[in-house]
């Protein structure tokens, strides 16, 4: 066994950092890759926001390089020079006037060079959404934290199938390559929205196909991950660690993995069918007699709405993939931060399960306005509203956990508190939209944009900020800087709300999503709102640099971490920081649940590996 250790220490750079089968390294690979995509997708959306605040003006700094072609850049000064020559040569007044006009036009074109045009605008929204969901939030929550924490939390050496695990990362990596390459093909990346509704998605350029390939690969990567997580959690728990002694983080990963296993293949199937439509000329999602710009299209006879059904059958469960792991991690951070047991541990587990289960029967709430049978709308309205129940149970349990706790307001806890409060707002707006009559009014407006940013950014991403800060010592053996952490939390929290709260207002006011503002007169009254939102978004975006700086700086210069810096009970804190290559030298024996805080005796907390001295104190 020590021998094996020796072998590992000698593993080359390639086996350590590239083709590593160690779950912790794979988790870190997912984490860093997703950070890169966080910035790419963030840049896309800031360009888009810039355009909403400054219609027709070029995006500063990078705009000319990215949103104008080399040809346009070369042509602009030539046009101006030509027009000037013409003006100088003009003889009579009429010619002068015409030449002046030409010059003005050339100048205007040059000044607008690097602004986002309509086609680019819709591409930006599509790719921002797709990248954030499939290349940032899911890989961070599931790929990074799922990988890093599951074997630690169940008390074992590694995942059940380490090679499959590495393959899952590298398939994801291939997907990243296709996603990026999409920008380089003719006509640019996919631009039919992240939902890729037919028929726009059937007709778009090759970027659309790249998107389809890349998402199919992401899907396969997720399925491989899910097989691993489920097997590891069910078959490899340490002695004494019953399912009811698992921390909520791992419970949430478990339920999420079930969703991934059963919902992702449906997405893969849908993507394959859409690809067949585009590449082989099949007719799954194309309507009969389809015309595009007055040209009859060869496909015919499929069902356009069917795509929406299949897509949302996956993508509603997927929004829970986007939030359940965050709920689990926030629960753990709150229990540690409040020094109290989770209020209603079993209720938490049951409600996660209920959310996941109900998640499969609510998909058509995205389609109230699609032309689907109105009677179906009512059924889906009711099932959607039912989801609010388990969500509310969770919220009350978080509040119950905080109640009379001695809360430490450190960075992880602050972020977890933000998670809870932002999730409440997002959940409440969800109920509004679940009501069909209300949704008819706000569907496809910024209200929806506000809703899902409150749950995904306000919820999941804040939980991720907290979780990265919390588990950083176990990953890298150092602490992140708390001052920078708090500053980053504060700026993010304030500017997040300044950015997204007003979207409820303009959405209810009728501002449609995914539209370029310059084109529509009726959007003019929203201009000052848009300017305000854009400025907040820019500060929000740039605040994230603090986080990334803190992350990489602390990796080398952070304060060295002790084994259990947060006085937490779960198994991973019983081993040194950073976690050794094989986690546990000897598989630990587990005696308690994960939330024994404020127990009697000389200790304020009782790690899962320690036998309790006496009966737990009554509260």
């Amino acid at each position, binding site marked *: 066994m020590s021998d*094996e250790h020796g072998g590992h220490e000698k593993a080359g750079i390639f086996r350590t950092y590239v083709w590593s089968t160690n779950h912790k390294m794979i988790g870190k690979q997912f984490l860093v890759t997703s950070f890169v995509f966080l910035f790419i997708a963030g840049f896309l959306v800031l360009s888009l926001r810039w355009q909403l605040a400054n219609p027709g003006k070029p995006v500063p700094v990078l705009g000319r390089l990215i949103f104008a072609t080399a040809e346009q850049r070369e042509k602009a000064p030539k046009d101006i020079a030509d027009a000037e020559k013409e003006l100088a040569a003009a003889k009579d007044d009429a010619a002068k006037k015409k030449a002046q006009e030409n010059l003005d036009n050339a100048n205007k074109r040059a000044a607008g060079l690097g602004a986002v045009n309509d086609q680019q605008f819709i591409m930006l929204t599509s790719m921002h959404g797709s990248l954030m969901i499939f290349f940032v939030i899911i890989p961070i929550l599931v790929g990074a934290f799922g990988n890093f924490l599951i074997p630690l939390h169940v008390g074992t050496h590694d995942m059940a199938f380490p090679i499959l695990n590495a393959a899952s990362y590298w398939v994801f990596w291939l997907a990243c390559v296709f996603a990026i390459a999409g920008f380089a093909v003719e006509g640019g990346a996919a631009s039919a929205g992240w939902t890729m509704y037919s028929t726009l998605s059937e007709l778009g350029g090759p970027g659309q196909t790249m998107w389809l390939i890349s998402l199919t690969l992401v899907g396969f990567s997720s399925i491989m991950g899910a097989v691993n997580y489920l*097997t590891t959690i069910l*078959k490899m728990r340490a002695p004494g660690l019953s399912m009811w002694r698992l921390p909520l983080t791992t419970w949430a990963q478990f339920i999420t993995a079930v969703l991934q296993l059963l919902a992702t293949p449906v997405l893969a199937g849908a993507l394959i069918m859409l690809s067949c439509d585009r590449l082989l000329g099949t007719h799954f999602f194309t309507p009969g007699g389809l015309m595009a710009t007055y040209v009859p299209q060869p496909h015919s006879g499929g069902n356009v709405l069917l795509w929406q059904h299949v897509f949302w059958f996956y993508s509603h469960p997927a929004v829970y993939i986007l939030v359940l792991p965050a709920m689990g991690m926030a629960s753990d951070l709150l229990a540690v931060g409040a020094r109290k047991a989770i209020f209603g541990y079993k209720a938490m587990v049951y409600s996660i399960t209920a959310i996941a289960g109900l998640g499969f029967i609510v998909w058509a709430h995205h389609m109230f306005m699609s032309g689907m049978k109105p009677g179906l709308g009512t059924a889906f309205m009711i099932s959607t509203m039912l989801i609010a129940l388990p969500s509310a149970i969770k919220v009350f349990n978080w509040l119950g956990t905080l109640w009379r706790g001695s809360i430490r307001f450190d960075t992880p806890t602050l972020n977890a508190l933000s998670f809870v409060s932002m999730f409440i707002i997002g959940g409440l707006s969800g109920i509004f939209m679940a009501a069909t009559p209300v949704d008819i009014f706000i569907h496809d407006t910024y209200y929806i944009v506000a809703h899902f940013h409150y749950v995904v950014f306000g919820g999941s991403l804040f939980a991720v900020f907290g979780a990265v800060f919390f588990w950083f010592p176990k990953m890298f053996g150092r602490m992140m800087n708390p001052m920078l952490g708090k500053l980053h939390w504060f700026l993010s929290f304030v500017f997040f709300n300044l950015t997204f709260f007003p979207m409820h207002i303009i959405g209810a006011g009728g501002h449609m999503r995914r539209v370029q503002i310059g084109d529509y007169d009726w959007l003019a009254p929203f201009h000052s709102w848009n300017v305000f939102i854009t400025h907040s978004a820019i500060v929000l975006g740039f605040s994230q640099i603090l986080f990334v700086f803190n992350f990489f700086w602390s990796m080398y210069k952070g304060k060295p971490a002790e084994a259990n810096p947060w006085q937490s009970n779960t198994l991973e804190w019983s081993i040194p920081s950073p976690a050794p290559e094989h986690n546990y030298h000897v598989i630990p024996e587990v005696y308690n649940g994960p939330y024994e805080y404020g127990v009697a005796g000389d200790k304020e907390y009782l790690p899962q590996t320690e036998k309790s001295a006496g009966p737990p104190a009554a509260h």
Partner: protein
Amino acid sequence: MSHADAAAAHGHDGGEDHAVTFERARFGMWLFIASEIMMFGAFIAVYIVLRMSMPQEVVDYSKEVLSHTFHLALINTFILIASSYTVVRGVNAMSKGNKGHCEDMLILTAALGLLFLVLKGVEYAAKFDHGIGPSHNVFFSCYFLMTGFHGLHVLIGVILLPWCAFYVEKFDAHHYAHVENLALYWHFVDVVWIFLFPIVYLL
């Protein structure tokens, strides 16, 4: 054996044995099959929805075209059922430690799979000869998608079976997870066909 894989499989202190790895691998295979069921389920659901809204004359016409090669599909059904039997014989032989017989059975299964693919190829060729491809109409979109995806799974099996047979010599009597998992996969592929055959060719 110094890589993480080995360490995880055998346990750091050598405590976990082959039975445990075996059990895990089989469980993982079941999970994989569950996700495959969802994917074929999506295809079949889409087929059902499209089929229900298909004009009768399209259905009649497509059925007429299919009926020309019905006998091939029928023979193929029997071939796959037979191959399920041979793969079970293979697993049984392995559990009794009879490696030679196991090898033979795996190869025989692969041969049956190959025969299935050849007949499928003849069936496809008959369609293509009449200019009927996936873009012909909605029925044939579904037909080619479902049978094509199933065929792809058969192909993967046909590649994995001989590959596994090649390694059978090296497995010990208690460590034949590969054989069992492969058999499980093969049964799954057969069962998919048992569903596809009636809904595509009969109904």
